[in-house]
């Protein structure tokens, strides 16, 4: 992952940064996920716990997102169907 460069806005201290690789994160939940994904072998048991609960939270959010995306697809589909029925 060394090709990822980061820039923290100069007047602002980074919200959080990773203890293992130093990469700064704008929000703590992203850092928790990053630690679990990139450093799973070395992180402490409590960090593993919080990674797992963060993953569960993320899964919930993803489910909500999927419903929204499905809604968009349905709107797109029926929108196009209507357009074709009227204009083609």
């Amino acid at each position, binding site marked *: 992952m060394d*090709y990822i460069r*980061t*820039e923290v806005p*100069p007047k602002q201290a980074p*919200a959080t*940064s990773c203890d293992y690789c130093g990469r700064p994160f*704008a929000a703590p939940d992203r850092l928790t996920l990053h630690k679990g994904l990139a450093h799973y072998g070395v992180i402490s048991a409590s960090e593993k716990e919080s990674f797992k609960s963060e993953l569960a939270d993320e899964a919930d959010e993803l489910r909500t997102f999927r419903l929204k995306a499905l809604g968009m697809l349905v709107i797109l589909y029926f929108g*196009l169907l209507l357009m074709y029925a009227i204009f*083609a």
Partner: protein
Amino acid sequence: MPSSHNTDPPVDESEIKSSADHSTTKLEQMRFRRPLRLGIQFVIWTVVIAFFVDTVSAANGLTLSGGSRDELAIPQWLYLGTGGATVGASALLASFVTDRIFIRKIHEWNRPLLPVDRWEGVVTKVGRAVGVVILILTIYVGYMGPQLPNASFAILVTFAGGRAALPMVAYLIGNVWSILNPWRTIALVLPTGFQTYPSKIKRWPAVFGLLTLVWIEVIFPVSTVPTVLATAIVGYSVVTLAGAVVFGVDPWFENADPLAVLFGLYGAVAPIQRHNGTIQVKLPGSELTNAEILSDTSDIAFVIALIWELTFSGFITTSAGAGTVSTLVGIVPVELIPTTVQATVVYTVLFVVGFLVFFAAYWYAANLSRQWVGTYVSTETLRRSFAPSLLAIAAGYHFAHYAGLFISLSPALVMALQSPFTPPANPIVLTLPGWFGGLSIASILVGHLLAIGAAHAVSYKIFASRLVAIRSQYPFVLVMIGYTVISLWIISLPSAIPPFLQ
């Protein structure tokens, strides 16, 4: 590089966003806001003029002389909207795939095909010999042979072969240019490397070279008059060999030679890749998630130039493009300057400004993406990581624009290869079947779908949070939709001969 602050209180999301765009990206925004605004205005005006001109010429019945292929059974806006919606819908569908391991497995899937060492020597020698012989024949026949575009060995090999078939081989199968490249073969026997290649200028010479080659193709009659083509090839050879001798073979062909860079990048789309001395089969486009393909802004500019040159040369050969050029040439009331000079200026300005607009759109998408998800990942990283996916789009455009040309000229090309010195009296030019237009539309859409898939995998590599990864793609998807709609619009227009050029 980042410093370690572990226990700062969590910062409000909106605060992060606003401070991010006020500080680091502010300079970039200021630098790009004005050109961007001008660019957007330019695009709007061009489109307005183009539509206006198209309706006028259609009303006059002029398009019939250009060989109309306007056979759309649905309104044009619905056709364009459907194309854009297809890309958008596929991005939405891709966002349903949230299993990290699955995504990584798909893009890392490969099967070793052959170890290279057994046959590499022979194939390289034969390929290099073929490349050099064809280059010499092309120049010789260009000057001494018949001056007929559809029968000249020089023109058929350069355009049906080098312009149409070789890039298709590069993105559909694998890059063979690294072996065929005749200039590289010649440079290998010359004394080289008198200067070190200035690493500061990166691949900008290749970007400039590619734009220059396309500009020459548009302005000069290289595709119709063999002597002009041969002169252009001699000029290119002199520049290339001089560059390779001064800076060394590998530095020159990796950074400054537009053709070598072009084939190398098209080759990244291909299913056949070379890794550590073996030839591997991969899924098409899966190599585009490799962050090492592009390393600098100049590389991104090259990728955008690939998309733009195909869009531009497509546009000026349509009735709307020809009409736009005629209108712009007519606007300037300068009687003293000859029309051909005015037309050259118009073509050049359109070409350069359009490229800048396409580049600015992508550049701005990365800024937008960074602000939108409030990440600390630099815009430079975002730009560099997402840009390889655009190569699949370029490949789709290339196929849409050149597959037809290659197939219709392929019998003539075969005949020319069999007897370079005695062209046939009646060269066969195939007429394409009606469904071929559908194949062009399909290839543009397939290119975009590969690009969407690659962008999805790239975002998962960069971001730890999957929601952030999904949201970071939106601006890039919007730019891709924009490119698709423009490209689909161009191939739906009736074709015409670009005005004022020989």
